[in-house]
């Protein structure tokens, strides 16, 4: 790609001290950067008009016992070309300090705090060095992703206190909510500062459900860890499973049969359908519009039962495997699926007409919880939430995986960034998913559904894999270790990126609208906390 090569050259001219490495995956370039140069080069990538890089992933890796270094990796997606630029640097020996890029790239805020908690590396100049994953009762010096930290270590408890940000002034009071919520929701803590009705500040406190997923990956072999990936976030079983499988297949140099890629696409779209239908219902329910909730709940249940009939799991668990899929869906079955989906589409169109004709619902949704395009850009927000705020990104179109190279996707895009826009994006995507499955049925080739892995991975090899799940971009970085084991697996659910943005979307809204705004984001706590 000449354009990408041009970008590389521009970077090398601007920063002669950097060294180009071989790219780790397609459509990407990789540079090794001296650590002192990191703030300057990331700032350049982020702000230069011909780059406009969005921080997509930031992770660290403990390279011991092979070499005594910590690696830091910064992945940027360039706007326009969707090319990946990766910067990496190493902290050698006892060096535990690295320069923070958060002061000018807001999206790095949680990543750097996470690295500090999990590895004990300190981002110098970070504006907020409170603990993130490790709650106050964790003893000092516990950094689980260091290689010298045993995975089954029993953590003690110490006394400690978490300091929330607070606003002072006459009539300001604080409303703490959680970690256990009133509905059937996951655990997380929200702290509102209000004066009168409008929210002046919201502070999130998550990681209540931190289960040590990334450490558990390191105890498993590449092939066996798939069930764990499927349980990172239960509602995104296929998204996470697929992203993990793609990474492993790259490491094993394993080709996936064409039919299997189509079936994977089918599963991913079915997952998107069931979740979007449920979300639209749940958003209506949070405005006390029970009729729409009942209709959407009913349609979602039809998809879940369809999943169950197809694969024996309502969440499509175990449908995907490394090298392909576990069971074939013959063409007669596919026709049945399409017929069922056609009925659901008609049904949904009728319900949609009722929902959008309801003036009191529109009144609740419009101008509620606006996430401005600028805020969305600063936080590198993506997925459904991003597309409702004018962020034109969808991996199915930008970096096609599975069978999306043969199935072009029309990306739903809205600019208002309010709850209604997020509802509209979901509505449009439901129609688009059904259209894709219809098109898929016509194009699916015959053939085998899985290939067996024949080689073992080379220790130290690593790769990145990206999948557009129903929430947004799911990224996996998998590095192979000795004997087919995993040396490091970085999991990034879109929730991790989108959660901080909600703190800005609620400002000026009233607390009773918070559940509605939260539902319109519908982020995973489990995928965020890991």
């Amino acid at each position, binding site marked *: 790609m000449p354009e990408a090569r041009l970008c590389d050259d521009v970077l090398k001219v601007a920063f002669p001290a950097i060294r180009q490495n071989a790219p780790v995956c397609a459509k990407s370039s990789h540079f090794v950067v001296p650590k002192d140069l990191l703030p300057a080069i990331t700032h350049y990538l982020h702000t230069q008009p011909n780059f406009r890089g969005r921080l997509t992933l930031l992770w660290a890796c403990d390279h011991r016992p092979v070499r005594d270094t910590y690696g830091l990796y910064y992945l940027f997606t360039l706007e326009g070309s969707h090319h990946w630029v990766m910067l990496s640097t190493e902290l050698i020996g006892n060096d535990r300090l690295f320069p923070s890029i958060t002061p000018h790239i807001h999206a790095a805020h949680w990543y750097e705090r996470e690295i500090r908690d999990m590895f004990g590396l300190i981002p110098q100049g970070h504006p907020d060095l409170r603990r993130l994953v490790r709650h106050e009762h964790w003893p000092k010096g516990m950094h689980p992703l260091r290689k010298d930290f045993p995975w089954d270590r029993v953590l003690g408890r110490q006394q400690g206190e978490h300091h929330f940000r607070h606003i002072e002034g006459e009539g300001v009071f604080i409303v703490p909510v959680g970690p256990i919520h009133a509905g059937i929701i996951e655990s997380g803590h929200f702290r509102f500062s209000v004066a009168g009705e409008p929210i002046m500040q919201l502070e999130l406190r998550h990681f209540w459900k931190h289960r040590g997923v990334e450490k558990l990956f390191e105890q498993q072999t590449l092939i066996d860890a798939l069930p764990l990936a499927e349980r990172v976030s239960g*509602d995104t079983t296929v998204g996470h499973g697929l992203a993990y499988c793609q990474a492993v297949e790259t490491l094993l140099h394993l080709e996936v049969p064409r039919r299997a890629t189509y079936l994977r696409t089918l599963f991913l779209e079915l997952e998107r359908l069931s979740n979007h239908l449920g979300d639209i219902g749940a958003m209506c329910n949070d405005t006390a519009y029970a009729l729409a909730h009942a209709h959407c709940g009913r349609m979602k249940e039809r998809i879940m039962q369809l999943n169950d009939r197809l694969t024996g799991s309502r969440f499509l668990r175990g449908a995907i495997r490394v090298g392909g899929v576990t069971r074939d869906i013959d063409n007669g079955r596919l026709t049945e699926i399409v017929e069922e989906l056609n009925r659901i589409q008609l049904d949904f169109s009728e319900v949609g007409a009722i929902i959008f004709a309801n003036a009191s619902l529109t009144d609740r949704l419009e101008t509620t919880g606006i996430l401005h395009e600028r805020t969305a850009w600063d936080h590198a927000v993506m997925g459904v939430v991003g597309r409702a705020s004018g962020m034109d990104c969808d991996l199915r179109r930008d970096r096609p995986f599975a069978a999306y190279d043969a199935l072009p996707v029309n990306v739903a895009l809205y600019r208002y960034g309010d709850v209604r826009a997020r509802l509209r994006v979901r509505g449009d995507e439901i129609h688009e998913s059904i259209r894709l499955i219809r098109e898929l049925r016509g194009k699916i080739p015959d053939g085998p559904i899985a290939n067996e892995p024949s080689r073992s991975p080379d220790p130290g090899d690593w790769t990145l894999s990206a999948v557009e799940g129903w929430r947004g971009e799911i990224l996996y970085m998998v590095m192979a270790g000795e004997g087919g084991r995993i040396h490091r697996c970085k999991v990034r659910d879109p929730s991790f990126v989108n959660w901080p943005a909600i703190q800005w979307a609620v400002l000026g809204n009233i607390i009773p609208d918070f559940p509605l705004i939260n539902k319109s984001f519908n982020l995973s706590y489990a995928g965020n906390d890991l």
Partner: protein
Amino acid sequence: MFRIIKKSLKIGVVTGQYQKGEPAAVPVVPEVKKKAGLFKRSFAIREVDTGSCNACEMEMNALMNPVYDAEQFGIHIAASPRHADALIVTGPVTVNMERALKDAHKQTPDPKLVIALGDCAIHCGMFKGCYAVTGPVERHIPVDVRIPGCPPRPADILEALSELRNGRP
């Protein structure tokens, strides 16, 4: 208005359109049944998530949709543990959620039932032994009923609740 009524008439009743669940493998202990009998036809449940992958939550939510409609059997979700007759706990108990779970249990008025939902809550599933997980639910609070599955189907959850309440779902 006409459109809404037309749609409702067209759809008709969907409740019960699901495959019946499997009866529980392990029968409920008589003492637990006796305790559950106190709640008669109104059974308020508080759901506590201590680290599940959220699939169990999705199935609990599905229980309340028109197809399963657990509400018709007098099962409802209470907004606070203080209003609850039973706690349904999902997920292995994480280090960070341990205290919150114990607090919620303490705040639930006696007599109360504790139901461990899903494999993770029963034996930690694949998170067993990890540094961030302190053990299954029963290590922290006494558990009366176990509903296995990863995640259990809504029909199985209904079946288990029915068994608990002597055939009254």
